[in-house]
């Protein structure tokens, strides 16, 4: 990065310092996606409505950020941030529902599994929405770092 010329918006190859945080964000999304699919498809836990909305935000991140990494394209951060932001909001709301701060009556969770059910836990201790919130938080921080580095 010693050259004088400004860093290109995209495609600036192997010297790009945004690559590492972008990779971290993508890895978190990949692990979260694999984890969600394992819980739902293998362990047979039916995702509740709010879980589905978080999945809708999380799954595309794997592809958007994956393409960005593959092409070393910093612009992918711009397209990933809204997804991660919306996902973070839903995860935070879900956690409030799970902890009983917000009444579940506000969300139609009648059919399928309940969003406030104790079943939304891993290993009987960690609530899945908390894991989801942690993943979205990590992705947002990593994306923010990637954006900051891409701009300098």
């Amino acid at each position, binding site marked *: 990065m010693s050259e004088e010329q400004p860093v290109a918006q995209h495609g600036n190859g192997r010297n790009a310092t945004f690559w590492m945080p972008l990779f971290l964000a993508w890895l978190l999304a990949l*692990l979260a996606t694999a984890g969600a699919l394992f819980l739902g498809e293998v*362990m047979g836990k039916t995702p509740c409505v709010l879980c589905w909305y978080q999945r809708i935000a999380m799954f595309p991140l794997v592809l958007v950020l994956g393409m960005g990494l593959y092409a070393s394209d910093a612009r992918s951060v711009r397209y990933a941030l809204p997804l991660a932001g919306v996902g973070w909001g839903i995860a935070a709301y879900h956690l409030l529902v799970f902890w009983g701060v917000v009444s579940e009556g506000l969300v139609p969770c009648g059919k399928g599994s309940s969003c406030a059910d104790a079943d939304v836990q891993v290993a009987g201790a960690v609530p899945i929405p908390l894991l989801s919130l942690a993943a979205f938080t990590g992705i947002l921080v990593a994306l923010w770092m990637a954006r900051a580095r891409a701009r300098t």
Partner: protein
Amino acid sequence: MNRKWIVLGTVAAVVLAFVAGVVVFTNRSNQEVKQAAQTFSDALVRPHSPIFGNPVAKVTIVEFFDPSCETCRAFYPIVKRMVNASFGQVRLVVRYAPLHHGSDTAVKILEAARQQGKYWEALERALAAQPQWAAHDRPQPQMIWDLIGDIGLDMAKARADANGPAVDQVLRQDMADMQALKVDRTPGFFVNGTPLREFGEAQLKALVEQELKKAGAP
């Protein structure tokens, strides 16, 4: 190292870990279900359960059955044909797993019909019309009464029996056994005590064949 290879390698590693997780988890849960079937083997067949076919058949298919379940409906003729084609070697024992909303009411009506010896007629009527009464968001199991109005039941007695203690006891026992045997979806099959783990018509037939061979049937 090329960054593209880092991305591809990470994808491969996560996919591999996922597949390994599937294998480990499936093995473990299969083991648990087998264990439960062995530990609670007396929970498989209770004297109160409806039996289709030769009561002293060598091979017993235990089916945890939900009258509202579409797959149970689809399997009913398959299992019936297997029993009928077995020349008295295979019997079906029906246990209840009322996992859907309203299924308990449907079971009670069927059990009331059984007290008057009209169980299979009532069951076939109920299954034939299942799409009408068993919508999962708005089940109307009471509709079954109209469906079985002309099979020769004393309806007043049947309505009283459906809410009686004998039927209630059957339902409670079956639900307790369902939990002990870790049946969490329907239809849940056991053939001579072996749980059918990989679900499917061919798999069920293979398991029955295997048990027939073990029993030394011709």
